[in-house]
């Protein structure tokens, strides 16, 4: 019997699918059906239109290439960045933006760490603030105005609440304003540890 399967491609293919699906179902599908994979902190709020626009820009520019958004429960990591990340902080992130490489520092607790002006100066010329930084300049985003129509579509796709007044305010905002608004809200659903 054992050698027969290597003569029957259709059966071989069906058996392969079954073998592949065992691990898939056990570690991916079944967890998805449990509450364990859909936690949400009580303090966590959906993104505002401006913050979502900023998150879209964060994705567009590939910030994830150099910045993580997850603090591991390790002593020195908590000392460096702040409270370790909780599962319930990311319910509104589609997809998750934890990243996998820290060419730059982790950003999971960047929200509220510096004033907006700090970010403006830093984006404008990171090397002026940190001569040894290798971060690209992002000051050019000040020239680009936001597009409220596109952002409205994005809010709808995410099923986030918004008002027309909120959208109307967007047309005077720049991409840099949005990005900073997003950074300022990251990680703020968790009360900072001492």
């Amino acid at each position, binding site marked *: 019997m054992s050698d027969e399967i290597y003569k029957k491609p259709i059966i071989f293919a069906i058996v392969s699918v079954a073998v592949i699906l065992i*691990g898939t179902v056990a570690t991916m599908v079944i967890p998805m059906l449990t509450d364990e994979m859909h936690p949400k902190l009580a303090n966590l709020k959906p993104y505002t239109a401006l913050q979502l626009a900023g998150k879209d820009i964060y994705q567009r520019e590939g910030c994830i*290439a150099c910045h*993580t958004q997850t603090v591991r429960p390790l002593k020195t990591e908590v000392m460096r960045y702040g409270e370790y990340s909780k599962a319930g902080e990311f319910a509104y992130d589609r997809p*998750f933006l934890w*990243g996998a*490489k820290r060419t730059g520092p982790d950003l999971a607790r960047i929200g509220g760490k510096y004033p907006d002006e700090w970010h403006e100066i830093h984006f404008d010329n990171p090397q002026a603030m940190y001569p040894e930084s290798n971060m690209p300049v992002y000051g050019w985003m000040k020239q680009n105005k936001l597009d409220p129509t596109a952002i409205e579509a994005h809010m709808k796709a995410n099923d986030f609440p918004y008002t027309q007044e909120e959208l109307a305010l967007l047309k005077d905002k720049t991409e840099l304003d949005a990005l900073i608004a997003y950074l300022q809200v990251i990680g703020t659903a968790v009360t900072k540890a001492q």
Partner: protein
Amino acid sequence: MSDYQYDNQTVKGFIVSSIFWGVVGIVFGLWISVQMWMPSLNFPPYFTFGRMRVVHYDGLAYGLGIGAIFGITYYIVMRLTKRPLLFPKLARSHLYLFNVGILLAVISLLAGMNTSKFVGELEWPLVIAVVILWVMFAVNVIGTIIKRKDEQMYISLWYILATVIAVAVLYIVNNLSIPAGWTKSYHLFSGVNSANVEWWYGHNLVGFLLTTPILAMFYYFLPKSTGLPIYSHRLSIVAFWSLVFAYLWTGAHHLVYTPLPDWIQTVAIAFTIFLIAPSWGSVMNGYYTVGSDWSKMQTNYLTKFFILGITFYGLQTVQGPTQGLRVVSQLIHYTDWVPGHVHMGTMGWVTMTVTASIYYIIPKIYNTKIFSEKVANIHFWLVLIGQLIFSITMWITGIQQGALWKATNADGSLKYTFVEVLAKNYPYWQLRTIGGLIFTVGMLFFIYNIFMTMRQGKLSLAESKA
């Protein structure tokens, strides 16, 4: 009577296309490696590190990798089934659409259409295009295998069937998204669940794009070029089934110490350790195959490509599981160690095996010999040295980064700021660029050799087969 046509034209088309996209991907790779230590080489908005890095690895995975997989798989399938492709015209359209697709992918990524899903960055219209391309490929491959003239399916066909099926499942599930306009979408899955789905996809793409189709090439071209039969059929069977079974459990080893439930991480780590066994099954099968006559390493120039390739596969599949262990992960995760690991696999195992397969195919379909074995040997040593410089410098700097991030003073406070640790990477990042340059020069020797072989031969469309 048996004078039927092998579609060598399509095979050649895919090989040339994959080489072209390979050059694009490597140029982007060199460029971003310089940006790492010379940020003035960023030219916003299109040519910044964040956008270009995606073009680098997607260009190489989809352009060079999948392009070569399409072409070489067609070549292997026709020979192992002893018949032409079931749908030769479909294969030809597949070739043209593939190139259009990759071109649009590069443009869209530079334009910032990036879903931020690792190796799944393309936005939904292009996802549909990729699915169509894969279905075109699958229909032809599966159809040709069903209508084969040789009853027994050789090992390479197992790996090819597994690849065709698994990639389809992975790609479609991970790309389920909510569209929000033509150029934007949001993942159907959110937060930790999104992370779990995405690394199930991301890790298994390594398994079914950079492992199984490359093993199909290895099992086909190693015996072909050395004239030595595969050492153990039984070992091939055990290694195949345990590999395709275990791979799917391991994605969460990319999420060690994240908020993903611990049990999923632990299961993934355990299966990752198990995965050493089937990986080394193929490594040992390769070694013992050539072990029946080691002089092939000297007398047949391709043998060393395959043996070094499978050696790097072996090292990769020990290093990878080691990295999954929590105690190792806490030190090297998020550091430059990881790109060092990835590039040993891609530059050492995948590129070595793919280029050797192309060296075998091109003279065959052009009715000639390789233009120069000497040039092939220069290519071999340059890519080997370039890759080793790349990987080893990244491992060193990765350990240094990890250790300095954790370093504390006597009073328990952190010893270094983030920027102080960053500044210590520059010499290594510069060395990495040098390693990349040496690798690139080696690849240029390869391209020259292939181009000259094509010039001296003549492409044959019909091959008589007994």
